[in-house]
């Protein structure tokens, strides 16, 4: 992007000097509120007491106070920026920060789970980006660097990914080994750093080549938001009002007038929850694009705040495909994933596809699990998404489960392929879990008195923290025990052949990335 070549700092370095000015704009919101109160007609805020807080102060005093607060925020941010430094080592990213309490953090690259380049609106306007490096250590364990120039942030991400992938190792043995030291080596800028091939081609590591796999059209995203519970609630409200008026002779207009009479702000506040939902769905899903590269999954999305996520191969611990009842006509699926380090933060980061068609849903599963370990992956997934009963080799709930699970017992099913466990449920609202065997943390078998009387049990698959919590409910006890045993065995084998943490030392990933 830029003409200069960015090199990830090996020495302690500060972030971009503009960083302190990209935060602290909340104060402007306060000014905006004041302005609205001052210059817009009374009906907007109803002239109620909440805002009369401002009336106590003269305009000049308020402006002075706001300026002071703003200056203070900037000063503190500036000071924080002065005390925040980071550097890159061969095995870790180091960060030290803090004014009063000093904090040193070291994110080990072999534990790297994901790298995100995030651009909040303001940073985006000026071409800056923050970079977050997630390691497996639960929530808030990652390293967040904000802000850098967008180009620098991407170069840094590429370099971190290259280091974490173990490219350094292969470059040492592959490229440097045939060359006798001191003979044909180009006059490197620093000959003492022969173990640092970074000096040569990776001053600006090119992003691993990427192939786009799917892109979400804005129309479908809007359609999916239109077909959601909050919308239905919104639409149902007038109907309920109509029934109230016609059926029960209730004075709805009086009620509406009463609500409107208080203020528009009150109504806006009441709608804020709904609007917030629409906004997060829209902002998180806008322009959602998924691609595959040698560095793993690449997801990019966002309307005002954009986010580019890179999740290296083998970091996805579980997938959940979910279809609400009103998405059945279109056969749309919402796909979420568990990635250690992302934690519970679901809406912004743990989505693999906000609204997938059936074909895209299959593609999304393929992205995470290129080899499902089944001779007919699309057929099997088809049974998993829409099947019922035991067709497609699924183990289902026995008929006696009807007593505790009258609606869905016929639709519950479990099947293990060579690489993953598929758990299906749901008659009207459908759900499918896909858990790769090598990502299973532990397994549980549970049974309460009611299920015991019916000879049923639940098998729980413990995955890393995240929105996906797979459970195979209401299996016959014998099936459940057999599944647990088989699954423990499969997880054992899966762990044995899992891709190494340094994914580029794995063979065959590039070939897989180029087909399909």
């Amino acid at each position, binding site marked *: 992007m830029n003409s200069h070549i960015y090199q990830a700092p090996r020495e302690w370095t500060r972030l971009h000097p503009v960083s302190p000015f990209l935060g602290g704009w909340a104060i402007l919101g306060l000014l905006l509120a004041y302005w609205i109160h001052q210059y817009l007609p009374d009906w907007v805020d109803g002239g109620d007491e909440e805002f009369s807080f401002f009336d106590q102060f003269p305009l000049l005093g308020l402006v002075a106070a706001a300026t002071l607060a703003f200056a203070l925020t900037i000063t503190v941010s500036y000071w924080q920026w002065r005390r925040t430094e980071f550097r890159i080592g061969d095995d870790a990213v180091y960060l030290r920060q803090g004014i009063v309490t000093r904090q040193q953090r070291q994110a080990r690259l072999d534990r790297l789970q994901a790298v995100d380049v995030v651009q909040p609106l303001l940073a985006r306007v000026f071409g800056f980006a923050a970079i977050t490096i997630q390691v497996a250590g639960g929530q808030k364990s990652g390293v967040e660097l904000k802000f850098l120039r967008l180009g620098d942030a991407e170069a840094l991400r590429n370099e971190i990914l290259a280091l974490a992938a173990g490219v350094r190792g292969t470059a040492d043995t592959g490229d440097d080994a045939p060359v006798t030291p001191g003979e044909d080596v180009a006059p490197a800028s620093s000959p003492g750093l022969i173990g640092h091939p970074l000096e040569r081609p990776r001053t600006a590591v090119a992003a691993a080549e990427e192939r786009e796999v799917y892109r979400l059209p804005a129309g479908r995203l809007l359609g999916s938001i239109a077909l959601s519970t909050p919308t239905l609630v919104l639409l149902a409200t007038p109907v309920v009002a109509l029934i109230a008026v016609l059926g029960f002779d209730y004075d709805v207009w009086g009620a509406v007038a009463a609500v409107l009479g208080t203020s528009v702000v009150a109504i806006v506040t009441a709608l804020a929850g709904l609007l917030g939902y629409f906004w997060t769905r829209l902002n998180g899903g806008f322009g959602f694009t998924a691609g595959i590269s040698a560095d793993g999954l690449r997801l990019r999305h966002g309307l005002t705040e954009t986010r580019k996520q890179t999740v290296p191969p083998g970091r996805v611990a579980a997938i959940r495909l979910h279809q609400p009842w009103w998405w059945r006509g279109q056969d749309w699926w919402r796909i979420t994933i568990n990635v250690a380090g992302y934690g519970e933060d679901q809406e912004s980061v743990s989505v693999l596809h906000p609204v997938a068609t059936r074909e895209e849903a299959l593609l999304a599963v393929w992205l995470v699990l290129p080899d499902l370990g089944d001779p007919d992956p699309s057929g099997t997934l088809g049974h998993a998404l829409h099947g019922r009963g035991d067709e497609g080799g699924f183990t289902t709930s026995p008929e006696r489960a009807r007593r505790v699970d009258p609606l869905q017992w016929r639709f519950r099913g479990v099947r293990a392929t060579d690489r993953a466990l598929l758990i299906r449920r749901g008659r009207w609202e459908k759900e499918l879990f896909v858990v790769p065997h090598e990502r299973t943390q532990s397994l*549980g078998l549970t049974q309460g008195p009611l299920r015991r009387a019916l000879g049923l049990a639940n098998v729980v698959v413990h995955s890393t923290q995240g929105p996906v919590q797979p459970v195979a409910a209401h299996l016959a006890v014998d099936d459940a025990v057999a599944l647990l045993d088989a699954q423990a065995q499969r997880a054992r084998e899966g762990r044995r052949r899992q891709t190494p943490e340094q994914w580029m030392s794995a063979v065959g990933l590039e070939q897989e990335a180029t087909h399909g």
Partner: protein
Amino acid sequence: MSWYDNAAWISVSPRLITARLITLWITLGVLILATAITALLTQAAWVWTAPAALAVAGAWASWIVVRQVTAHAWAETTDDLMVKKGRMFRSVTVVPYGRMQFVDVKAGPIDRALGIATVQLHTASPGTDASIAGVPADEAARLRDRLTTRGEARLAGL
């Protein structure tokens, strides 16, 4: 209908019953004493139903404690640690050693006085509930070391 009956289960120490009963009856004892004193002071016969009810509840809870502790066991197979819990709501958790992130050994004052401890194995999943209460203290230390050694031998990232 098997429920892993054939695994080499090691039951937890019966001293856990004592520990749990002590905790239970300390709480209940205070309540029973308070209600009994109230009954004595008010001289009303019906007030005696409160301490009586508490005593009955305590007896029932004690029976549950005994049943629970006798159902609590663990087994070490070549690759996994298995933990069994509960009678009414029973569960078996299978944790591969290679998935272990860290092991906790905890013992409160009553536990220490009785020479038992709680060993808990943590994986990267918050859902893994692999805690073994009432392991004899010396066995707890050995179990911890054994789990750590096996975990290292079979370490499997995340």
